[in-house]
């Protein structure tokens, strides 16, 4: 499949790129009563939030952590979460206040996450691969991911769907998913709801309600179930029927490109 064009019908506007399709997938999972928060390098979820506000969820709130602009206008979207353009927004909150409210636990209902490693139970790692003292890959660090334990729904996204990223168990647990599965998840007694969805360039996944392991939901246009299984470093739960990911409508694409007017997602 082409990296830049998820469909080939050549209609106008041109079909979505993979990253645009992913933004629409994330937007579908946002509701009008959500207050979403996101951090480092979060253009994709910011665009998803703006798209959701412009379509089915006008009352959604979202905080672009870093600058902490609240409902930033985007148009254009910017690649850095600390860009002062994100202060072209309804209002802004100091970062230290956002950190306070992340701890409160009942304010933010959606938190976006990702990782160098993402495991079968949705735990995320941005710290290190291998032994942390002498890692084979030192990542940047965990930032706010430990707060995932306290958030209503965690939406995970990554541009890298391969066996190095999708591993059975993270080498460093920075952002908690369903920990080691049902027993440890129940024992931890966390107030958060855990990961709700995982959106990748190949597919969208959820979690099996019994095992709390990642479960294939839909495959993106042109991707086969076999390709997803091969690209995933653990045994992903594959239901009997895996429908294709619904294509964005022309209206969704047009709105999205109005928000992402510099085309950050267009070529990805």
């Amino acid at each position, binding site marked *: 499949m082409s990296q830049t064009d998820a469909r080939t019908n050549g209609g106008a506007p041109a079909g979505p790129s993979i990253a645009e399709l992913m933004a629409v997938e994330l937007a579908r999972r946002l509701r009008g009563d959500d207050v979403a928060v996101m*951090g*480092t*390098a979060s*253009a994709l979820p910011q665009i998803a939030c703006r798209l959701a506000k412009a379509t089915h969820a006008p009352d959604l709130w979202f905080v672009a952590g*870093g*600058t*902490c602009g609240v409902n930033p206008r985007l148009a254009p979207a910017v*690649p*850095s*979460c*600390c*860009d*002062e353009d994100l*202060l072209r927004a309804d209002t*802004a909150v*100091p*970062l*230290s206040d956002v*950190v*306070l409210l*992340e*701890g*409160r*636990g009942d304010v933010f209902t959606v938190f976006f996450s990702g990782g160098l490693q993402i495991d079968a139970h949705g735990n995320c790692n*941005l*710290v*290190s691969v291998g032994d*942390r*003292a*002498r*890692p*084979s*890959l*030192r*990542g*940047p*660090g*965990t*930032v*706010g*991911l*430990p*707060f995932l*334990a*306290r958030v209503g729904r965690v939406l995970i996204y990554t541009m890298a769907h391969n066996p190095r990223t999708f591993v059975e168990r993270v080498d*460093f*647990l*920075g*952002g*908690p998913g369903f*920990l080691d599965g049902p027993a440890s998840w129940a024992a*931890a007694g*966390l*107030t*958060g709801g855990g990961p709700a969805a995982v959106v990748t360039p190949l597919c969208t996944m959820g979690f099996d309600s019994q095992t709390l392991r990642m479960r294939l939901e839909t495959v993106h246009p042109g991707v086969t179930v076999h390709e997803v299984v091969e690209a995933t470093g653990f045994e992903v739960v594959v239901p009997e029927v895996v429908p294709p990911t619904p294509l964005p409508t022309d209206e969704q694409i047009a709105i999205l490109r109005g928000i992402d007017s510099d085309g950050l997602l267009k070529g990805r």
Partner: protein
Amino acid sequence: MNKVLSLHDAVERHVLDGVGLLAVGGMHLHNNPMALVREVVRQGQRIRRLLTSPCGAFNAELLIAAGLVEEIATSYVGFEHLGLAPAFRRSAEDGSLRVLECDEAYITHGLNAGAGGLPFAPLPAGLEVSDVWKANPESFRLVEDPFTGTRVLAGAPLRPDVALVHAAEADTAGNAVLAGAHFVDRVMAMAARTVVLQVERVVPTEVISRHPVGTTIPGFLVHAVVEVPGGCHPTASHGHYRVDEDHLRRYLALAGGAEGPRAYVEQYVRGSGEADYLQAQRAPASGEAFA
């Protein structure tokens, strides 16, 4: 009291060789006090422990690239969408840099504890399921909540000996205004024993006192004010100029070469005074004029 000092004198007087805990302000590639950082590199002051905001960037990377940092307390050092920070990555991987693993909650609440004289910062329930505190027993403890008897995570207070912080403008007494985002710079300044401010311009007190509630850092916390227009380069200065991504890509290319990040340090920092550096970077290629 006039606190304005030259770049050289501010660093020589306030950033002593072997400083115990040096904090650098700004977040990601924005509002990094790079002129102060470059001057620390020129003077060769070693840093026993460096502290970043929740997201350190070129501020931490350059000090590490210069071989000055023994340990770093951080929750992130990287170049965000431009990629990993090569000196941080390499020295953490080969063990020459000790990383005290932190997260955003601890850095923020730890600085608040430092600012308020709190003995420690209790952290929200649930954060103990992450591996962060297990990797950093020096900064974190599991303690008993005296009210409920449950086990809660606590972090040691963060009290930087010196904080290097950028502000858009300040008066000569150090009353400072941050244009744009505050990140955790205000909290960092409140927690530090000594605050050295880097500003785009020094303004009369009457300018500051027109909007006193807009003053982000009061002068009584500030020990030195250094005026360096363009001094955040190559990072952004909110209200003044944007990130010079071309320059940072040149850094990444040099750092990825045979000589590694030190080649950049020699060429752009040790081999050049601040005025010459800034003059050279005003090339049109950066696409942004300095205010």
